[in-house]
């Protein structure tokens, strides 16, 4: 009892003692914090106020050089050059109008530009510096720098100016940069800096992380005249990564030149052996250099609403019904699932009855009894309706996905649409209605809900041509490339489809006789497609429906047929039948490819048909 009493007593005294120790520590720490606050606020604050009159500290961001973009031959497509500029921060300028007026005495600011800056200041982040004048010479730059203390909110700086080469031809691929908007600034506050540009489309957007680099900073003491007294610290900027593309920009220009003859459309050209995208053309085009230099809001609005949507890359954003080009998928799926073989014959009487509806063949008189070879060659719809019906939509959709449809590719391009490979689950989720058998039939000939982009069609073609899982590639990496893996697919099935595709172009009665290669010792294999835009019943008997209602013309193909090297997909909007516009277009592109890359297979190298003069056929 006695011992416990003392233990208790001891602890009680210890508690009091230690409470006092802790209380003392608290008092000590508070005193320290108070002193430090006094030092920071009153002592340093006074010095800070003095510094405002005499010297001041200045932290300046060093913008990182944005990575260059070159094509496969080393041609520069996008580069960054140093640029001296003057900008103003509305939040710090006080009376922005007065500041601009004062600045106007040093450099020429047209009235229109002044009102634009004032308008911009109202709607953008008030801390975001607005560029007043870029591309200054050193004398003016130095002059403004000297007078900086009298110009509140005005900043000078060295930025990088983005320049695009062949911007009109590769604009859809390379994209362009622009001033960061509020959302982009919220993601990364550094983008607030004047002259900082972020990718807005194409690779500039898709590869922003790699291209942007990381900014550095310099901290300096600056005197009242704006002169640097001493440097206090610096962290260098790290330039962004330079990109080398798989694109051949001169080929791209040639392809566009040829495509423009046909009006609106898109062409995708792949190296079928490794997935390199050699060209990716869309018309109409626009000039990225003009955008990078900054265009007026009026010109921008005009560009956005221009006919044909020049800003959109149709090769990756244009979702078209693949029409008969989709018959590659249907045929391969049928053979793979063994619902047909090469000799299975279907008799085409011009139409097929299904669930009380009549599904017409494009040839209303019918093709008679046809097997795969003949059906593909003459593009018999009834044959493929039958195959699709036997397959069912799920097996058909599965094959479409295996051939690369219905997906976007991780090639760095931001402007990709996935197209659409429909199946009952999709329809139930999106349209809340069950799948009808007739829709399977339509899907079997690439109409109905099926949608694909030209790039996807080129991938599909390359995969059929090589039997390999070709994935399109736009940016070369240092690792080099292995040939893509073989697809787990019956070689016999692939071979049968390929044989029929050779017949489409090269045999009597094939739908794409207009695409047969001339002057090249290689065969083109391919498939035409004619995508209905409007029901044509109303136009039967008359010559042709008006332009905007005419069918889209499609062609997919690869060459050489026996050892595939190139895969091409071409879409000409409202170009009529596939054999009429897209097939000759693809032929000309293919001939150009052989002239450039495989001259040994070109029969008459000098007298080769110049691209662009062989329309029709």
């Amino acid at each position: 009892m006695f011992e416990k009493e003392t233990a208790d007593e001891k602890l009680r005294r210890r508690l009091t003692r230690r409470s006092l120790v802790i209380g003392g520590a608290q008092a000590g720490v508070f005193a320290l914090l108070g002193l430090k606050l006094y030092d920071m606020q009153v002592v340093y604050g006074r010095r800070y106020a003095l510094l405002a009159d005499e010297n001041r500290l200045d932290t300046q961001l060093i913008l990182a050089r944005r990575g260059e973009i070159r094509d496969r031959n080393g041609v520069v497509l996008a580069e960054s050059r140093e640029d001296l500029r003057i900008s103003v921060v509305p939040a710090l300028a006080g009376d922005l109008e007065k500041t601009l007026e004062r600045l106007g005495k040093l450099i020429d600011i047209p009235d229109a530009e002044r009102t634009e800056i004032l308008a911009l200041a109202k709607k953008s982040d008030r801390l975001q510096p607005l560029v007043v004048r870029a591309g200054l010479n050193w004398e003016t730059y130095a002059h403004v720098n000297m007078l900086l203390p009298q110009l509140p909110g005005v900043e000078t700086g060295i930025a990088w100016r983005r320049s695009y080469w062949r911007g009109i031809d590769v604009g859809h691929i390379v994209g362009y940069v622009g001033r960061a908007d509020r959302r982009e600034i919220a993601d990364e506050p550094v983008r607030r800096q004047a002259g900082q540009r972020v990718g807005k489309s194409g690779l500039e957007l898709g590869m922003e992380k790699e291209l942007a680099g990381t900014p550095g900073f310099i901290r300096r003491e600056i005197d009242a005249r704006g002169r640097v007294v001493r440097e206090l610290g610096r962290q260098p900027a790290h330039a962004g990564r330079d990109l080398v593309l798989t694109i051949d920009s001169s080929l791209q220009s040639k392809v566009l030149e040829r495509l423009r003859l046909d009006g609106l459309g898109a062409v995708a050209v792949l190296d079928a052996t490794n997935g390199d995208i050699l060209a990716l053309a869309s018309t109409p085009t626009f000039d990225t250099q003009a955008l990078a230099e900054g265009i007026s809001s009026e010109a921008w609005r005009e560009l956005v609403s221009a006919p044909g949507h020049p800003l959109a890359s149709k090769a990756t954003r244009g979702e078209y019904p693949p029409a008969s080009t989709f018959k590659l998928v249907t045929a391969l799926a049928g053979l793979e699932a063994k619902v047909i073989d090469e000799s299975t014959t279907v008799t085409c009487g011009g139409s097929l009855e299904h669930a009380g509806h009549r599904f017409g063949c494009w040839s209303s008189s019918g093709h008679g009894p046809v097997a795969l070879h003949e059906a593909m060659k003459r593009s018999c719809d009834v044959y493929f309706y039958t195959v699709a019906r036997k397959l069912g939509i799920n097996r058909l959709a599965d094959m479409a996905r295996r051939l690369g449809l219905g997906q976007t590719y991780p090639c760095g391009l931001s402007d990709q649409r996935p197209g659409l490979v429909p199946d009952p689950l999709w329809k139930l989720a999106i349209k809340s209605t069950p799948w009808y058998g007739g829709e399977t039939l339509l899907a079997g000939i690439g109409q109905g809900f099926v949608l694909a982009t030209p790039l996807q069609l080129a991938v599909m073609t390359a995969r059929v041509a090589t039997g390999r899982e070709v994935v399109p590639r736009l940016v070369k990496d240092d690792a080099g490339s292995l040939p893509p893996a073989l697809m787990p697919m019956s070689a016999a099935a692939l071979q049968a489809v390929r044989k029929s595709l050779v017949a489409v172009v090269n045999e009597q009665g094939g739908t794409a006789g207009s695409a047969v290669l001339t002057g090249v010792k290689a065969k083109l294999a391919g498939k035409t497609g004619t995508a209905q835009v409007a029901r044509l019943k109303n136009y039967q008997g008359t010559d042709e429906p008006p332009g905007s209602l005419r069918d889209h013309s499609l062609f997919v193909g690869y060459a050489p047929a026996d050892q595939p090297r190139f895969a091409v997909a071409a879409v000409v909007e409202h170009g009529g039948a596939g054999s009429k516009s897209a097939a000759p277009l693809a032929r000309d592109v293919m001939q150009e490819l052989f002239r450039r890359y495989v001259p040994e297979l070109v029969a008459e190298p000098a007298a080769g048909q110049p691209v662009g003069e062989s329309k029709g056929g």
Partner: protein
Amino acid sequence: MVLAFRPEPSVWQSPAKAGGLFTVGLLLPVIAATLGGIGVLALYSAAGGAMEPFAMSHLMRLIIGIALLLLLAILPARLWLLAAAPFYVAALGLLAVVPWIGATISGSQRWISFAGISVQPAEIMKLALVLALAAYYQMLPRHLVSRPLFVLLPLAVVAVPAGLVLEQPDLGTALLIVATGLAMMFLAGVRSLYFVAGLVSVAVLAPVLWANLHDYQRERVLVFLDPERDLLGAGYQVYQARIALAAGGMSGKGFLEGSQTQLDFVPENHTDFILSLIGEELGFLGTAGVLGLFAALLLVLGLLSLGARGRFQRLAIMGVSVLVFLHVAINTGMVIGLLPVVGVPLPLVSFGGTAMLTGLAAIGIAMGLGAAGKADLGPRRRPTWRLTRG
């Protein structure tokens, strides 16, 4: 083993009846309300001179919280002793379910919500831990306090919630829980030798650990310790806060006139960095005033603790004092760049519901315990709850 429990009539008296409420403790709600009021003004300014979105809800919480404080202060002290263990277990349970049902905000899971109310279990845990440890040392026979087994037990009581908080991840709160727990053990009289041994082993182990870190881990630690290494990232806040404080000077730029904070240069200016806003607009007088109010709060708590008679009361009150002190010291140290940015709010002033309510609740409990001087819970003659030795 018999769990003997003998109520003594006086023990169940409310502190008011016990006659101890009208003491220096009465200053506590006054100081707390003043600090909360400063918070309302600062938040009004942080929103650019508007009651929404911060100031109005801060004010509502302050009013509810002060009412809660007064309510808790008149509850009988014994209640806290009885409730300590269940309260701790409940808080631990809440903390444990955060990873499953918690919401992720700024990359860490700290919140759970039910019935439209979001709470931060870690905030509740701080208070529960103080009460649990105070109760533990109330129950523990005195001669066992420094026995290794009975030192390990409270260490576990501290380590489990600290570990859960660390998982969220919230390093600042985890360290704060550990520090509070250790301070409680120190106060309870655990032999100094343990603390010395602990310090020595940390000092020995730290370089070993450092040597085994990867380069990128080291860089992270270095940036944590010296934010200016990464001026565009973690250091940005600290750098801008420093400019804001310096711009305030002695008497500040005036209410609603702080350009640094008004212009959003200082992120989080309504939560953890609210002191930089006060410093810019009200100057050193403002920041020193806030610190002075907290010092007064700590002084009152210390006096209450010294004046209280029971071991439980004294420990719990000191525990609350340590909690408040650590928050203020870490937050201020963080804003003025002495400590790394760990996300500890300034009690009662920073925006945040759970922190405000648990803070005021803790002060209320301390006030009640301090007043319950006559209702001694101490087992001087006869432990009221104890494991009898048969």
